[in-house]
């Protein structure tokens, strides 16, 4: 595998995760529990879609086959997507959306913080901008973790159910393969073991403060790096890609 091929795969992983979770959050548009929270979620969704546009645009450039970010976003099938499994999980209730977002936000906070020092200048610049957005996302979801976890009996139960369902998707975030090994050697990507330590040190106190339990099972889901996704991605892509595929070549 060449450095260029590794970089392309790595950028797909970053960009696809942003795109898919941005799409999931956009599904809340107009249906948020209150006006202010609806707007907050949409702002966060827009941050992710903007980040995905930039990263997938750079990925297309690195690939060098004449594809654009739109081709990558709207014309690939599930087996070609590299987003983390956690990002494609359905929104469920608000507890599930917040829990999913929190676990992912802590990850991107430390990942992008490390990417700011990437030897690839484009990635470093993207990370510099995105990290500011992520800092706000994390603050927002953390406050909701506390309020819903340590809230009413109902909110607490919903949060614990969400945590029990989603915890199994938090192992994959830190798995590394040949792509990572190559890019770590070049100083382009960070060692995810270091990110994992920071993630655990950050996540555990918040979960405890929210009066929630970390599930006791050890099993962790994986497969997104090889394009093996949960049953949800197909439906998500069908909806997300339908307009683009219905009107090929259309422009705003």
């Amino acid at each position: 595998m060449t450095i260029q091929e590794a970089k392309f795969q790595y950028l797909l992983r970053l960009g696809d995760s942003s795109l898919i979770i941005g799409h999931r959050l956009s599904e809340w548009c107009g249906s948020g529990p209150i006006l202010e929270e609806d707007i907050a979620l949409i702002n966060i969704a827009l941050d992710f879609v903007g980040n995905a546009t930039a990263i997938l645009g750079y990925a297309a450039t690195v690939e060098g086959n004449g594809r654009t970010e739109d081709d990558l976003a709207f014309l690939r099938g599930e087996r070609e997507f590299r987003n983390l499994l956690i990002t494609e999980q359905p929104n469920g209730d608000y507890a599930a959306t917040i829990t999913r977002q929190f676990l992912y936000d802590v990850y991107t906070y430390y990942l992008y913080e490390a990417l700011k020092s990437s030897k690839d200048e484009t990635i470093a610049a993207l990370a510099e901008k995105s990290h500011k957005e992520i800092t706000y996302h994390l603050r927002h979801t953390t406050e909701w973790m506390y309020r819903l976890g340590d809230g009413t009996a109902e909110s607490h139960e919903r949060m614990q159910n969400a945590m029990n369902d989603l915890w199994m998707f938090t192992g994959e975030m830190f798995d590394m393969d040949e792509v990572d090994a190559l890019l770590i050697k070049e100083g382009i990507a960070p060692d995810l073991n270091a990110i994992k330590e920071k993630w655990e040190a950050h996540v555990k106190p918040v979960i405890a403060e929210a009066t929630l339990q970390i599930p006791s099972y050890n099993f962790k889901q994986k497969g997104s790096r090889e394009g093996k996704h949960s049953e949800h991605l197909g439906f998500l892509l069908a909806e997300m890609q339908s307009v683009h595929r219905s009107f090929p070549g259309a422009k705003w």
Partner: protein
Amino acid sequence: MTDTQWPVWEVFVQANPGIPHKHVGNVHAADAEMAIQNARDVYTRRSEGISIWVVPANAISASSPEDQGAFFEPSNDKPYRHPTFYKIPEGVKYL
């Protein structure tokens, strides 16, 4: 029917350092931290400013419309209170 909405917070945004915070509207929130975040999300999407104040609406005391006559009309015929007899130098925008 009881109102189950969260309390109202009035929002003030400061556009640039040194100039006054301006009232831009209000948000609902259960507490101060969420009020600040909600205000940031609702009222600063287009680079409106660099600082936010939120104040519980019931902490604000206001004059009533009936008082307008007694409060404000007497100052209408006191020209000596206005600094109209000298020129303000150019460039002193926020005097």
